[in-house]
């Protein structure tokens, strides 16, 4: 089975970089396994989340895991939301982008083009600070470590 893990976000906008940060942690955790020949068929991608780039990233994979930042009014920073493409939220994600295209659009377009992976898991991490600069806030950094462990288990298992 081939899996692609896609970290979506901008590392220069603080917590918005949680997706790429999880991918980086996973790369470190799985390097040993990979060199020992214990992990094959896993690709890592970081993305700005642009619709067509997302579809290209998961095309051909059996399973895609997307990690993105989510913002919730009166939120709980670091809280992890888990859902699959079958969940209605996947097609009405309403992710914050000024260009009227989001993860939901990517899923809808990929379905129409028959370019969906067999399974699509989406992890959303609630953010605290999306100001300028690198580095995650404490709660989001802790969530990134937790999520990297969870996805590593998923990939190895």
């Amino acid at each position, binding site marked *: 089975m081939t899996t692609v893990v896609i970290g979506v976000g901008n590392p220069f906008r603080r917590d918005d970089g949680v997706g790429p940060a999880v991918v980086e942690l996973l790369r470190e955790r799985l390097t040993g396994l990979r060199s020992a020949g214990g992990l094959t068929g896993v690709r890592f991608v970081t993305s*700005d989340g*642009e619709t*067509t*780039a997302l*579809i*290209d990233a998961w095309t051909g994979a059996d399973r895609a895991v997307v990690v993105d930042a989510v913002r919730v009014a009166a939120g709980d920073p670091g809280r992890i939301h888990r859902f699959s493409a079958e969940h209605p939220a996947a097609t009405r994600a309403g992710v914050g982008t*000024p*260009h*009227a295209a989001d993860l939901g*659009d990517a899923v*809808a*377009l990929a379905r*129409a*083009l*028959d370019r969906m992976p067999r399974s699509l898991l989406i992890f959303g991490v609630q953010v605290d600070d999306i100001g300028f600069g690198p580095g995650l806030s404490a709660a989001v950094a802790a969530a990134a470590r937790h999520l990297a462990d969870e996805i590593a288990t998923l990939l190895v298992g």
Partner: protein
Amino acid sequence: MTHRSRSLSVAALARVEGEGAMRVTVDGDRVSAVELNIYEPPRFFEAFLRGRGHTEPPDLTARICGICPVAYQMSACRAIEAACGVTVDGALADLRRLLYCGEWISSHALHIYLLHAPDFLGYDGAVDMARDHRALVERGLSLKRAGNQIMTTVGARAIHPVNVRLGGFYRAPARAELAELVEPLRRALDDACATAAWVGGFEVPDFTHDHELMALVDPGRYAIEAGEPRTDRGLSFPVHDFERHVIEHQVPHSTALHARLADRPGRYLTGPTARYTLNHRWLSPVARQAATDAGLGADCRNPFRSIAVRAVELVYAIDEALRLIEAYEPPDRPAVPVPPRAGVGHGATEAPRGVLFHRYEIADDGTVRTARIVPPTSQNQAAIEDDLLRFVQQRLDLDDHRLTHECEQAIRNYDPCISCATHFLDLTVDRRP
């Protein structure tokens, strides 16, 4: 039809970049008013550029738009370099043109396939169209990808490239890196030619306008990253006189300034159809053939044919990118120095949606004293409103639902970038007795 008032309302105009609304008032059998309401709050870019370093506007203004960031970078660079008395030429200028070709390819492919073609084929959007026309939408995505590849290779990022600086680039690509673009671009050229023939066959309303057409002209080649403003009615002026000729004014219903040409009657228009009309003689042979295949003549005054013009420009931009890559010799250094000096500089380039003008006043210490940005969508607002007024007038027998849909299509002819102009459309049609 009975003598009555009508009110058409679109709360959120789809498939345009940004947020706006449209209001049409019909009194009996006469359209009395059309307003393109751009209500997106003003963004104050010109104000917060004041006091920034002279090296910063290319990156700061790029954030005005995620679709045409290169246009902002190039107009800002040209203006500030002019203020500082620096000319960027040779391989660095060619690399800029190549990067800009990447943006034209991505932007035009996006608009043709995902935003505009669904109107002509009777779909609510690209997803619905993809269910019936999978191969076509895949072709559009592949074209867009080719443009993104250029921007990633030359600009280091497909959205808001980070490799652009005053005087050139932070790092110039090696020949081998550009060579990797050749195969995808050759395939894209075939796809673009097929696109021109395809959209050239679309049925379009019999509708023309009489606006003066303004575009940059860069004799000898199709204007992209350089040129002087010219109109199809003989007006021509250097870029530094832009503000003498293009007069911006505020209207109550829009947070984006309208524009008119000083001492000229009527309205003017910038963008692909104006650019084509003033520049088509410099199309490459393959692009000229594409124009013939798309059924275009010497000018284009039917805004519904703009999709064909974009397809021809798509062919040209890919062909031009291939030519630039073939001729590329890496520059001696990735950028020429641009030391600050007190002065005023003006820059204009052809964004995918038309002429984008910047002016900066730089102080002795290199800080920006004042900035002025005139984007294409704001220049085109008055012409769009005039089109709508006459377009609706000819179609009053249509029911409100159909009329609303056609109005949205007419607005999408201009691929309006409302975010640039200040941001979506809310259509209201008032029909009064």
